């Protein structure tokens, strides 16, 4: 690898153009029109970021209401209470309100937050920058995907206003298709929302695959891409190949609900297990749509903030693809109760294969950290939290994949804790860390470091208090999705609830930190962390057309031992002493 910097000629002469955030000269209305019709991937990424954030708050409030309900062993969300009235329960039972709350929490968090979260926000913003491109391959499709997302979100919110669905986010038939307890239109509305959001997901995935294939800058081969891009590539493959299956599943479910076609309804000769197969054929791979971007973000954060080349670049890249491939073979482990022994054994065995590429990644991250010069700033603390939480989440998946132990653990709080450790401790924590890491690039403003650290610690502690207790609850037999429980569980439930509100406080502090930085934050330098991938070569926030001239890549994204980071004082990021016998990390 040579040590020349990347060509970005004419840098200073173009400074008067302003950034992509510069408002339109025609005033506020023109600026709104400009944003609403933009095909700039950076603006679309920011629009996604704020809509996803709004949905995250909606899902988060539902989660806090669930935890508040579980403070007492008996049901407290009766019709007379505030929450009962809020949801205008049409049944005499407040249990229905509780069911609607956890359905809302699950559906919003899965379909509107975690799945589109990292790819559509950070991916949209960073992918072309990291590849040295002017935009994604299909900019107008990109804008369309945002509008489709908003339409889907509108359907979900409409279903919520109209009292909401109570099926759980999995919409299992025949309860979802024919049970009288559901308000007729809500299931259809919620299902339509998920169906519409699928299109948005497919368009994003398709766009990214083509962008990665066709718009890498000169000099950038497949193995010169940042590993975040590899993670996005694997994510996109799953999005494109799995989402159509949920599309047809939800479409048939809508037919079932509206016309009673009987395909999933056992009363009419249909097969509800078929629905489960269809549903999990999408919804298991999509678990990796959720976690792979998190893994990619964590790789970037760890590499930049410990200033070391990523250990085992190719291993991490291929592990991403390996996870994407295995993702399609393990859906049956969600259905151990509804299949035969042979199928169970096969799916159980296949599920263990997921652990291999995942463990490869974890070991590589730890090897990257080893002897690195670690900067314990907010993004790095999030990356370390990710490692810690994701490890617990991954390892507790193994007893759930094992048939004998799963008989005891399935449908219990153990499962709830397990997937929250992966989905939230993995994806959301990495995502929030990534937002901190790239916030200076996206907005041109620095956040307050100590507030970020306090928020991160609160989130980390609150998260563990909330969900580690749930492992014990599950082991003791507390089933998931119940609004009331026996008195013995009360202490653990109360600890968990305290943790949930701590977690909420942590996120609230982070939000305040971001808002403060937008209003009164210091101006961000182009490269605050000393990163080497292409997005750090341009100003913060980037100009409208990203690069002033087409960049030519001359070094890898992690050559911290050979290359001075751009726009930085070399004294801040000194190169290591040359080793006597070449560079072992390559």
């Amino acid at each position, binding site marked *: 690898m040579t040590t020349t910097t990347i060509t970005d000629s004419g840098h200073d002469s173009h400074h008067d153009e302003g950034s992509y955030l510069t408002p339109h000269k025609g005033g506020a209305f023109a600026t709104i029109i400009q944003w609403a019709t933009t095909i700039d991937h950076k603006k679309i990424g920011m629009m996604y970021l704020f809509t996803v954030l709004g949905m995250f708050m909606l899902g988060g409030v539902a989660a806090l209401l669930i935890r508040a309900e579980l403070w007492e062993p008996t049901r407290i969300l009766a019709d007379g209470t505030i929450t009962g009235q809020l949801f205008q329960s049409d049944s005499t039972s407040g249990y229905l309100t509780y069911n609607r709350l956890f359905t809302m929490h699950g559906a919003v968090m899965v379909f509107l937050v975690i799945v589109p979260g990292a790819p559509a926000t950070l991916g949209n913003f960073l992918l072309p920058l990291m590849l040295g491109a002017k935009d994604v391959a299909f900019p107008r499709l990109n804008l369309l995907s945002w509008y489709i997302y908003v339409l889907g979100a509108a359907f979900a919110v409409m279903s919520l206003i109209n009292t909401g669905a109570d099926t759980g986010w999995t919409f299992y038939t025949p309860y979802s298709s024919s049970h009288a307890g559901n308000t007729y239109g809500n299931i259809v509305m919620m299902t339509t929302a998920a169906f519409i959001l699928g299109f948005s997901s497919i368009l994003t995935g398709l766009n990214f695959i083509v962008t990665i294939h066709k*718009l890498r800058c000169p000099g950038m081969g497949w193995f010169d891409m940042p590993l975040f891009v590899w993670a996005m590539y694997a994510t996109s493959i799953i999005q494109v190949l799995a989402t*159509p299956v949920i599309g047809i599943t939800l479409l048939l479910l809508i037919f079932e609900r509206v016309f009673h*076609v009987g*395909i999933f309804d056992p009363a009419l000769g249909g097969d509800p297990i078929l629905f489960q197969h269809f549903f999990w054929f999408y919804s298991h791979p999509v678990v990796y749509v959720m976690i792979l971007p998190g893994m990619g973000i964590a790789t970037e954060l760890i590499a930049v903030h410990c200033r070391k080349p990523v250990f085992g670049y190719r291993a991490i890249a291929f592990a991403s693809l390996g996870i994407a491939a295995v993702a399609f073979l393990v859906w049956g482990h969600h259905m151990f109760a509804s299949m035969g022994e042979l199928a169970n054994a096969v799916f159980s065995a296949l599920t263990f294969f997921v652990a291999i590429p995942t463990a490869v990644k974890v070991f590589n991250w730890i090897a990257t950290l080893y002897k690195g010069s670690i900067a314990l700033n907010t993004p790095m603390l999030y990356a370390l939290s990710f490692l810690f939480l994701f490890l617990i989440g991954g390892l507790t998946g193994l007893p759930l994949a094992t048939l004998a132990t799963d008989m005891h653990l399935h449908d219990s709080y153990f499962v709830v804790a397990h997937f929250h450790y992966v989905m939230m401790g993995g994806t959301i924590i990495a995502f929030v860390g990534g937002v901190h890491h790239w916030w200076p690039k996206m907005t041109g403003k620095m956040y307050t470091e100590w507030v970020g650290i306090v928020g991160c610690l609160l989130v980390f502690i609150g998260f563990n208090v909330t969900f580690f207790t749930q492992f014990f609850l599950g082991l003791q037999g507390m089933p998931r999705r119940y609004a009331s429980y026996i008195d013995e569980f009360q202490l653990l439930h109360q600890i968990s609830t305290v943790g949930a509100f701590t977690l909420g406080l942590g996120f609230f502090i982070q939000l305040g930190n971001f808002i403060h930085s937008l209003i009164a934050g210091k101006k961000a330098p182009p490269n605050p962390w000393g990163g080497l991938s292409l997005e750090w070569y341009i100003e913060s926030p980037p100009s409208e057309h990203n690069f002033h001239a*087409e960049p030519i890549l001359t070094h890898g994204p992690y050559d911290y031992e050979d290359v001075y980071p751009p726009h930085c004082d070399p004294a801040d990021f000194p190169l290591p002493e040359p080793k006597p016998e070449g560079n072992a990390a390559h």
Partner: protein
Amino acid sequence: MSTIDAQTRVSDPAQPGWKRYKFADHFRNAEDEFDACKLGFWLFLATEVLLFSGLFCAYAMFRVKYPEAFAAGSHHLNVWYGGTNTLVLLASSFTVAMAIRCAQLNNQKWLRINLIITIICAFLFFFIKLNFEYIPKWGEGIRPGLLYSNPFAGDPMEPIWWSVYYAATGIHALHVLIGAGLLIWCLVRSFRTTQYGPTHYTMLENSGLYWHLVDVIWIFLFPLLYLIH
């Protein structure tokens, strides 16, 4: 500095549309753009195949579960209507391929004629499906699932067969209409400033690919629904 314009053109109104089209600003050259559009469209076609794969799965599963109902239901379908529709779609696949060939040869007149024939075939298919199959059957009470009210059912589970039939052919028919819409859009554009020619026929090529997909799915649906008893 304006935003990136996806359609940067050299503005010389004397030139025909396909010569005036350069390529979108964020691509390096026209070949890259063409390749990217085709790659993107093939990925989209993969999603379409997977969408229909769910229906084929449901078909296979219920066929194994209720073979008599499927045999009885299949006997209600007139193979001549299905066969005619197969021929109509095959012919239209040929003409749409010829339309793309004409664009490559800059034969504007036959490009339009081929497109018009394809669009007529699309609507002919839809007309036969609607007028000779859906409407009479619905009138006889041969409807999906719970709506089924035909007293002469050959098997108590026949409604399931009709659910699969209506879902599969209905979603396919929707794709026929979408494909026809795409081809009409191509036709309109071929008359206007953005006409197609040897160096610029991406939209036409992708619409043609979509039309072939519609055709291929019918090629599988026809024997499964009409020929196998």
